[in-house]
């Protein structure tokens, strides 16, 4: 009967370290700005929205949505294969520990969208991800 709290900052830092540990990713950063001279595959972790629901005086259920923006570069005919492989690595990295080391109740990818080849030779995937955690305020 115990409660584990976390802050968004802690969760964001943990996400950052989890994706940095995905060996194939060459670049990870918070918040998408503009793709520049970044190494590929690259990932931006974007804060999208946050829903807060008070359950007790000092227990707030936070449902935090982040958008993982994944960039790959492949000028061969296997762009979609390359993109799919990176998407799978990100999902697997999250699924390896959905509590992110005890910070969250759950972490899951809700939806995956891609550019469908329009940005060739770049490939872009958007992974809408939901994180559920408890906050004290």
């Amino acid at each position: 009967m115990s409660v584990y709290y976390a802050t968004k900052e802690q969760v964001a830092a943990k996400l950052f370290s989890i994706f940095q540990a995905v060996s194939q990713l060459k670049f990870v950063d918070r918040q998408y700005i503009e793709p520049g001279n970044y190494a590929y595959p690259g990932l931006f972790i974007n804060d999208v929205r946050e829903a807060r629901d008070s359950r007790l005086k000092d227990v707030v259920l936070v449902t935090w949505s982040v958008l993982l923006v994944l960039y790959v570069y492949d000028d061969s005919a296997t762009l979609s294969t390359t993109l799919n492989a990176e998407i799978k690595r990100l999902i697997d990295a999250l699924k390896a520990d959905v509590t992110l080391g005890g910070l969250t109740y759950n972490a899951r990818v809700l939806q995956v969208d891609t550019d469908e080849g329009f940005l060739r030779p770049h490939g872009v995937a958007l992974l809408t991800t939901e994180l559920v955690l408890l906050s004290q305020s």
Partner: protein
Amino acid sequence: MSTVREQAIAKLKTVLKTASVKTVVVANGPLDLTTYSASQLPLVEIIPGVETALYEVGRHAEWRFQLRSTVYFVESRSDEAQQEKLVGEQKNALGGNPTLDDIVEIVDIVNVTPGGSFPLYSVEFQLSCRYERHIANA
């Protein structure tokens, strides 16, 4: 002078304050749990029900009342062993003192209903109690 039902509820407050329970409250309806802190849980809420006469014969009558007892607990991680322990404590407390020290008879635990969702869970007990009432001379 308190009624039998009031005495029973007062007794129930102490009976249901088991080892794991931190708070027991009597309320007329659903609690606003956002006024309680996590440190005050597990919390037992007792909601008294309506009291009705079963029969009256001469100076003797039997009355019955229902009440609900809900234990609320907060969990960050699924811990079924802890939950079962808490529910078991409540059942044992009721089963171990079915007359609430001769105040009433707990006739039946009508229903046990688990509820809630992360991180706040509950188990509701619906109790049916009866007692004999002696009617004083007019």
